[in-house]
């Protein structure tokens, strides 16, 4: 395996940190790794497959945490400032990854690294400082226990203004399973990864640097980046303008009309939904702009402040639909200042808003069913619309106090602690989420981020996309007709497309609006194979790429992630949504009602399209086609794996707990 010096785009080095020994090693990015797995999410998949043994405790020292910038991250190409965080998820027990924006990712590339791999467990709390002088593991005694904002502030004051910080808050330190990695104090990646940081006694990674990334043709690349800015600015796709104005909060306007979204049962009545409309939220709480990621044109995030009421004084950034929908619509809570407070607490403690809120949502359901009572919840009555209880419980989750200990195990794992709760569990692989067909096949448990086009694009876009895509995939079904016939082919293509975007570090919103076609340098519906993207990569890296080859890399990564899950026991049975979720009133892909039977049929068709066997295991033929023969070898040698049971949990009192209640 050789590494060519002339390769552009990649910083060229992987940083391996063994915290047990306190040792730091650099490894080159080989051509083989670079061209087969691209970067970001792809590197994560490869490293986690290679380094994580099946069935281990995700919070054990031998577990692995990987963080990596995308291939286009740290270049001048717009809207690519993202980092992918990967681990064996303590929340779901399967492959866990999350993609986060911020300023940190570009600093990682500027420091000369594409990826960081963290193993072991430090004997005492530490943070890692990466700058031009090298990599240093430093004592974190004075920042352990601090919130994410305090941590960022302290480390920037100490190490210079260009330093950016990714790390965890008190929730991660307490090994809360819904804790997340917080990047630049506001952006979250994969609910679950926070506990892995905590289990390694790693508080934060502070990065800065001035290393140059080689670019094959810097002038053309620069011109293309400017052209892309022009394309983004001139984009008139549906939703682009609103998105620029409101960010994902615009979904409070758009989504409620889709029956079946989120927690349908406790939907707020329409008149209460008014409070949640983005215009009203903006007028009340928004105090200024603040764009998310480095080198982004969308400016989709803002700063929020509550001035009156019990939550006065709350100041936070990056309020999202995704982090607040369950705690408002799901919990029947129309108190919007509590929503800002909840979001702020999640940021400060380092909790994943989605996963923390779905745990609360599930608790509310169990409470209403009488399965949970006041005795179980430390005297806190969990009622729909009771925002005070929600905020109190959020503190308790992060600090692992009282009933918060159980909530902190995450929405999927809670059912294992609460007697009689099991039949009412939700989602797939313990992630509560509406189990729509396009969501259930994600490699990290129910998730919407594999499939935006399929339901948010306008009919014209979908038809045009179909026209172009059917030339390549003749078995593609008609997009606007009800039923599942041929729809799995669309998912097949789209999941790869999204995987590639994660590898590039590109935002899913970029240049297509939330309702359109995220893509790099081309219009997706006109060029579904991404030839435009291939040309860009050729100019960046100096190696000829084709669109088909890049999509193939997406397929390779997706299959590797699936194989990882197979090793964790995933199969057809665990791929099915929990029984409580098998009745979808309106599915965005099937464009109609979906029940357990249709879901099973869909999965069968999906496996067939993907070249997987009846149990959803990638076949040898498929894996070899993707150059993953070694994966087939390992699967064949060791199957069957014990069936999926969720992650191994600790006795509830064995976790660390406590800490200061944040005043923010």
């Amino acid at each position, binding site marked *: 395996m050789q590494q060519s010096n002339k390769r552009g785009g990649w910083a060229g080095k992987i940083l391996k940190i063994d915290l047990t020994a306190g040792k730091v090693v650099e490894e080159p990015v080989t051509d083989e790794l670079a061209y087969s797995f691209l970067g970001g999410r792809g590197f994560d998949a490869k490293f986690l497959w290679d380094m994580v043994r099946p069935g281990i405790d995700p919070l054990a020292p031998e577990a692995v945490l990987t963080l990596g910038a995308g291939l286009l991250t*740290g*270049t*001048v190409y*717009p809207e690519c*400032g993202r980092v992918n965080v990967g681990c064996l998820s303590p929340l779901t027990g399967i492959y866990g990854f999350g993609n986060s924006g911020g*300023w940190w990712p*570009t*600093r990682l590339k*500027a420091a000369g690294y594409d990826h960081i791999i963290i193993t072991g467990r430090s004997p005492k709390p530490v943070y890692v400082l990466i700058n*031009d002088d090298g990599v240093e593991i430093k004592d974190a005694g004075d920042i352990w226990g601090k919130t994410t*904002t*305090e941590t*960022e*502030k302290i480390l*920037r004051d100490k190490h210079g*203004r*260009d330093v950016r910080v990714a790390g965890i808050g008190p929730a991660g330190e307490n090994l809360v399973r819904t804790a997340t990695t917080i990047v630049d*104090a506001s952006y979250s990646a994969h609910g679950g990864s926070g506990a892995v940081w905590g289990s390694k006694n790693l508080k934060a990674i502070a990065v*800065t*640097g*001035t*290393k*140059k*990334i*080689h*670019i094959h043709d*810097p002038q053309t690349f*620069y011109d293309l*980046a*400017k052209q892309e*800015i022009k394309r983004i*600015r001139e984009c008139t796709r549906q939703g682009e303008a609103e998105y620029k104005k409101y960010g994902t909060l615009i979904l409070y306007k758009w989504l409620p009309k889709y029956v079946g979204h989120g927690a349908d049962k406790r939907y707020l009545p329409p008149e209460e939904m008014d409070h949640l409309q983005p215009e009203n939220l903006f007028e009340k709480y928004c*105090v*200024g*702009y*603040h*764009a*998310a*990621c*480095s*080198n*982004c*044109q*969308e*400016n989709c995030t803002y*700063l929020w402040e509550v001035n009156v009421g019990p939550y006065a*004084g709350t*100041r*936070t*950034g990056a309020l999202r639909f995704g982090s607040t929908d369950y705690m408002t619509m799901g919990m029947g809570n129309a108190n919007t200042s509590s929503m800002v407070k909840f979001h702020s607490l999640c940021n400060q403690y380092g909790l994943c808003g989605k996963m923390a809120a779905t745990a609360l949502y599930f608790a509310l359901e169990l409470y209403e069913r009488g399965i949970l009572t006041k005795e179980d919840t430390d005297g806190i009555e969990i009622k729909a619309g009771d925002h005070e209880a929600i905020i109190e419980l959020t503190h308790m989750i992060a600090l692992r106090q009282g009933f918060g200990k159980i909530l902190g195990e995450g929405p999927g794992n809670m059912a294992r602690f609460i007697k009689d709760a099991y039949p009412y569990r939700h989602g797939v692989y313990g992630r509560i989420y509406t189990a729509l067909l396009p969501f259930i096949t994600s490699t990290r448990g129910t998730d919407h981020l594999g499939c935006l086009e399929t339901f948010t694009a306008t009919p014209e876009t979908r038809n045009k996309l179909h026209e172009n895509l059917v030339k390549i995939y003749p078995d593609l079904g008609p997009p606007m007709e009800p039923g599942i016939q041929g729809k799995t082919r669309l998912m097949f293509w789209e999941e790869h497309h999204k995987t590639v975007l994660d590898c590039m570090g590109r935002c899913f919103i970029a240049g297509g609006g939330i309702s359109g076609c995220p893509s790099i340098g081309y219009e997706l519906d006109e060029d579904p194979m991404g030839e435009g993207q291939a040309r860009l990569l050729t100019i960046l890296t100096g190696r000829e790429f084709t669109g088909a080859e890049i999509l193939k890399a997406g397929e390779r990564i997706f299959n590797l992630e699936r194989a990882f899950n197979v090793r964790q026991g995933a199969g057809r049975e665990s791929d099915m949504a929990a029984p409580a979720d098998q009745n979808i009133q309106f599915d965005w892909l099937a464009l109609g009602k979906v029940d357990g039977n249709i879901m099973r049929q869909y999965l069968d068709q999906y496996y067939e399209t993907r070249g997987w066997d009846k149990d959803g295991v990638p076949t040898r033929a498929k894996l070899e086609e993707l150059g993953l023969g070694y994966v087939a070898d390992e699967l064949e040698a060791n199957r069957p794996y014990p069936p999926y049971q969720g992650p191994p949990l600790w006795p509830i009192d064995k976790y660390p707990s406590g800490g200061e209640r944040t005043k*923010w």
Partner: protein
Amino acid sequence: MFCEKCGKEITKGVAVCPSCGFQPTSSKVRLKNVWRVTPVEGQVPVNGFATDCVVCETCMHFCSHYHEGSAIPALSRIVIDPTEFDWMMHNTDHHLVNRLICRQCPGVAPCMAACRVPNAMSRDDKTGAVLIDDEFCNRCRACERACPYQALWFSESRDRMFKCDLCGGDPQCVQVCPVSCLKYEKIA
């Protein structure tokens, strides 16, 4: 080049400006024809301040690629320094960002006055931008200490001074800012 007094074009090296009779004393003093990139007063009122900057660092990426050949935020000639962490922690009442960029001070620029090395600093003929010539600069960093705006600084890794050169009259940062909160204007 242009006359420092009246701003009319004159041939390089002439002793007296044919239009106004001004005698150029030094190429360092420039009263006319000075341009600069500067933040635009914003639309979003925040506790009495106004800002539009969204801390996207796009300007920093393009500035550093344009000059260094690859995007390295730490080597940008414009620095956007977020202060929102202080704001969130109630240390400050505003969340204005610090924007550090050279004002191209007309007349006698403090940085140039501080510079004792012949030929190290000069004015760009076209834009009046204050330029540093790395060949002559002896890295004493007197200019850095003299600038009242922290608008130029020394990079250890590159071993030279960094300051805005107005991209030779084609400022990149202004073109790429998504909220148009930088402008290129003639100040004198």
